[in-house]
């Protein structure tokens, strides 16, 4: 099944390479990967969508934690999240008829015309992957000249953020499979 993992990593050179290299050498297949800044200049955020056998999702999380520069990892596959994917699609619009049709389609789907030229038009849609898929499907009535998608970015719903989680306790909570499959809190008490 598909897993979505969010990693907070130190904003240092080579960190992305370490993360990607781990997926390669442990033979896990990435579907998409996005990297970007966060509001904290020392921390970058990586979202990975991967295909994994049952049980492998947990293994990847554990192995990511072994990387010194990885601060926090969360498998958000089964928790409520907002997911977004952004597509830029360049379609051939040689005449007014085509341009109008594209404009109408964009209006229907909540997409935007971002560049209109004499031969081609660039349209943009950000949304859940399914709506992006179906929009791209609909654009096939025109000739698609070029397309790019960012891949998924995810954010958990509600007040709790990854940055707020006390990494010391959550890192161990992640191992919680430990006690008879149940959960346990941090280890720092007693």
């Amino acid at each position, binding site marked *: 099944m598909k897993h979505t993992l969010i990693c907070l*990593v*130190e904003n240092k*050179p*080579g960190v992305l*390479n*370490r993360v990607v*290299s781990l997926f390669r*050498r442990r033979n896990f297949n990435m579907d998409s990967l996005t990297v970007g800044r966060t509001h904290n200049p020392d921390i970058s955020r990586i979202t990975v969508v991967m295909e994994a056998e049952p*049980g492998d999702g*947990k*293994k990847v999380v*554990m*192995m990511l*934690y*072994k*990387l*010194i*520069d*990885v*601060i*926090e990892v969360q498998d958000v596959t089964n928790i409520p999240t907002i997911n977004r994917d952004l597509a830029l699609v360049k379609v051939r619009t040689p005449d007014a008829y085509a341009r109008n049709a594209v404009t109408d389609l964009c209006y229907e789907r909540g997409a935007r015309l971002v560049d209109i030229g004499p031969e081609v038009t660039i349209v943009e849609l950000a949304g859940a992957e399914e709506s992006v898929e179906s929009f791209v499907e609909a654009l096939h009535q025109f000739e698609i000249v070029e397309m790019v998608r960012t891949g998924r970015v995810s954010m958990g719903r509600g007040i709790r953020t990854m940055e707020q989680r006390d*990494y*010391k306790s959550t*890192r*161990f909570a*992640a*191992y919680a*499979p*430990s*006690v*008879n499959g149940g959960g*346990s*809190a*941090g*280890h720092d*008490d*007693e």
Partner: protein
Amino acid sequence: MKLTGAEIVWECLLREGVDLVFGYPGGAILPIYDALTKYPQIRHVLPRHEQGGTHMAEGYARATGKVGVMLATSGPGATNLVTGLANAMMDSSPLVAITGQVPLGAIGSDAFQETDVTGCTLPVTKHNYLVTRTEDIAYTIREAFHIARTGRPGPVLVDIPKDVQNKVIEFHYPEGELRLPGYNVPGKAHPKEIEAALDLIHSAKRPLILAGHGVLMSGAMDEIRSFAEITQTPVALTLLGKGGFPENHPLCVGMMGMHGTAAANQAIQQADLLLAFGMRFDDRVTGNLKTYSPDSKKIHVEIDPSEINKNVKVDVGIVGDLKMVLRQLLPKLQTGQHQEWIGQIRDWEEDTSERDILLRLAAHPDGKLWAAQVIAELFRCTEGKALTVSDVGQHQMLEAQYYPHTRPHSLLTSGGLGTMGFGMPAAIGAKLGRPDEEVWAIVGDGGFQMTLTELGTAMQEHVNINIAIINNSFLGMVRQWQEFFYEERYQSTPLKNPDFVKLAAAYDIPARRVSTKEEIEEAVQWARSIDGPTLIEFVVVQNDIVYPMVPAGADLHAMIRRPKPSESPDFENNPTAI
């Protein structure tokens, strides 16, 4: 104080308590070597090849518990480190490797002796660094040592460009906390986990402790012994766990796994509780995972969280430092009695002794020299008190079977990576780290020749090690697999060897050849009496097999065993036959 980057490197090593480094100079690390002349309190040992140097540093680290340090130049110097780093990574040995790099401006230009060293070593190090500012050297080295020695130890590499080594700055040693938000060293277990473990421990009828390298690394030897004695739980050891629990203890059932004792493997398969302490369920100890210890509950105490549930699903997984976790468990343990279970294991051990090659040879001497005899005699002559360093192959498994270890850190061997050529250089490192120990490098003729250049190091540094070459003129373990699984097609395994005695003579190292059992004792005592390196070549039987053997991927209980006398059709004529 104004210092160059190179001088800062030594200042930092001194502050980490380093008094011995291994290293090989070259263009890109010359500033660091030049600065070493100002630090005479640090001893430098020059190997003959950087791979040998990393094995020496690892032997030193594993014998002393300190961090081993290896220096190398850029390009080929650094790429030669890769095997040694990979070995240290697999066996969790604390190393810090410092490599020179071409000047910053030349990086990426395919300059002379330039290699992407941090890229090359990424998968074989716990962490690595490219230092781009002289101001960062001190902090980076401090962090590197911290990462190498804490948690699950491992090798860390620091790559320093030549101009960064040369620049002069005002030096301040960085005190205070390290900034490592993504690095956490596990310690104690959660009380709930302790409770869950105790429930399983106290309800077990057939418990078994699996003791691994983690016992030695966390220093939990006393704790595990108390645990075993209070609960009367038998203990099986991994190869790297040897020394963590005394093998002459009545509760010890010996090594587990591919060439482990039949009793240990049968006990694993029939146990109702496995207590995996500081081990990682490597495929060489589990065999077929689907049929591995099917009826047992499993408790896994391990410092590396990614090992829990990686190969074997466990019922209670505890991430923590083994010594601390055992100390939490000990006061809560109830005394146990498992007489029936221990009696059952004794029966399995009886059955094993009937198949023992030494007993059979004692009853039916054939006048030839067998590798097992060499190891057993070596054990007898050294009273089992030597620090042995084995290489990889048949002799390694025979060492594990016939040289029982009772003291911690008295066996060093390449376990996870199985690096032929590890033995002799690691023995040099071990002896330099623990000069009062009697150190024996037990090596095969194949592996010895992979790093025999280090005889030069032993000679130059006058390292008092004894080298025992178990020479069957074959890559014996590969030969064994070819015999069992490739219909005796001995493709590329026979070796035409040099005269090892003359070879040693070229290095001015006293050497002897032994080809009968009767000569062993005298030769061993001769080697022990000589100050400085010695070499003994033991010429042994070629068609030897290490029994028992669990074929790769087979069920752990499906061992290939030496037939009992009653099972051998031609026993009278050929008592040692397969």
